[in-house]
C-alpha cells in the first residue's frame, strides 16, 4: 500500500513537470521561436527597506540578434527600457544602462546603430517597503538580425525583493 502511494506521488510529480515545460523549447518538428532577450538573474534580493539600494540585473540577447541600446541612434528606433509597475511595494529609483556597441549592418553600411548583443547588465536602484514582494518588473526592447526585425516586445523580469 505504501509502495502504491509512493508510485502515485511519483506519477503526479512527473505529470506536473509536463505543465511547466515550455513548448517554446521543444525540439519537435520545425524550430519554434524563442524570446530574443532572456532575463538571467538575480531571482531574489534582500535590501534595506525604505532606502535606495543597488541591484544588478543580468540579461542575455539571443545569438545572432541585437537590440537597440537605451539611447539608439535614430528617433524612430525603440530604446531598451527597464521599468517596475506601481503597486508592487517596490519602486524604481533610477536605472543605469550600459553604453551600446556601435555596429553597422551589411545591407546599410553607412548607418551606425547603438545596440546590445550577448549578455548585458542594467544597474537599478530600487526602494522597497518592508516585507516580501514578488515583483514583476518589465524590460521593453526591439530586436533585429542582419536582415529583418521583430516587433517590439516586453518581457517579465520576476524578482523576489525582501525589504528588511
Amino acid at each position, binding site marked *: 500500500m505504501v509502495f502504491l502511494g509512493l508510485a502515485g506521488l*511519483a*506519477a503526479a510529480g512527473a*505529470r506536473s513537470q509536463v505543465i511547466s515545460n515550455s513548448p517554446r523549447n521543444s525540439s519537435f518538428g520545425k524550430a*519554434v521561436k524563442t524570446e530574443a532577450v532572456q532575463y538571467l538573474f538575480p531571482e531574489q534580493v534582500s535590501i534595506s527597506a525604505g532606502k535606495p539600494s543597488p541591484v544588478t540585473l543580468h540579461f542575455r540577447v539571443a545569438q545572432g540578434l541585437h537590440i537597440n541600446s537605451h539611447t539608439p541612434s535614430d528617433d524612430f528606433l525603440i530604446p531598451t527600457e527597464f521599468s517596475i509597475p506601481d503597486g508592487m511595494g517596490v519602486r524604481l529609483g533610477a536605472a543605469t544602462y550600459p553604453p551600446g556597441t556601435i555596429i553597422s549592418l551589411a545591407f546599410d553600411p553607412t548607418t551606425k546603430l547603438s545596440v546590445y548583443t550577448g549578455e548585458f547588465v542594467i544597474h537599478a536602484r530600487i526602494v522597497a517597503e518592508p516585507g516580501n514582494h514578488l515583483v514583476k518588473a518589465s524590460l521593453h526592447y526591439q530586436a533585429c538580425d542582419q536582415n529583418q*526585425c521583430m516587433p517590439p516586445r516586453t518581457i517579465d523580469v520576476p524578482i523576489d525583493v525582501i525589504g528588511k
Partner: protein
Amino acid sequence: MTRRSGLRDLPPPSYNKDMKSIPLRRNTVVLVAVLFILAIFAWAGWANWEYRRQAAEKLLANTAQGELVAVDGSGTLQFHSSLMGKPAPAFTLNDLGGRKVSLAAFRGKAVMINFWATWCGPCKVETPWLVELRQKYAAQGFEVLGVDTEGDDLEPSDKGGWAKAEANAGKFVTQMKVPYPVLLNGDSISRDFGGLDDLPASFFVDRSGKVVAASVGLTSESDIEGNIKKALAE
C-alpha cells in the same frame, strides 16, 4: 548410566511449509511493486513527450505559416507562405489621411502588400527601391500598398501610443517621399497573413487577387522586381 538431557534431546522443530514460502511471497510483492513504479515512470515520460509534442504543434499552428524553401532548382531559399496560390485576405484600413482603403479596390492591378514599420531598419533600406519600382511598373498596372505595422505590443486602449505610432509613420512617409498609399494599423490584419513575426514582409498579388509570391526580411531590389513581374504576368 543415565544420560543428561540437553539440547540434543530437545524435540526436533516441526517442519512448517508456510514459514518457508513467506520470504518468497514478500520478494514477489516487492518485485511487482518495483516493476509497477517503473511502469508508471515510463508512462509519465511518454505522457510528457506526447504533451510537449502536441503543445509544440499547437504553437506552430498559431504562428506564421511560412518556411524557407529552395525554388526553381536555383538553391536560393525563398519564403514560401501558406497563402501562395490563394486569394489574398481581404482588408480595409485607414490611410494617413483617415480615408478607408480596401484591397478589393485594386482588383485588376498587380499589388505588392508591403508590411513595414518605422523602427525597422531593413524596411527603411527597401523603401526607396519600392518607390523606384512602383514608378517603373505603374503604367503596367502595378501598385504598392504600404501597411504600417508599428505597435505589436501596444494595448488597444493606449491612445497615446497609437497616436505616436501614427505620427511616426507620417514623418517617415514624408522623409522617404513615399508616393503610394500607406495604411495604418497593420497589426489588426497580421494574423490573416500568417502572423508576421518579422518585418519587412511582402505579399505579391496578381490581377485576380491571388498571392503569387511572398518575402520576409530584406532581399534585393532585383528579387523584388522579379516578384513584381510574376504578379504582373499572371
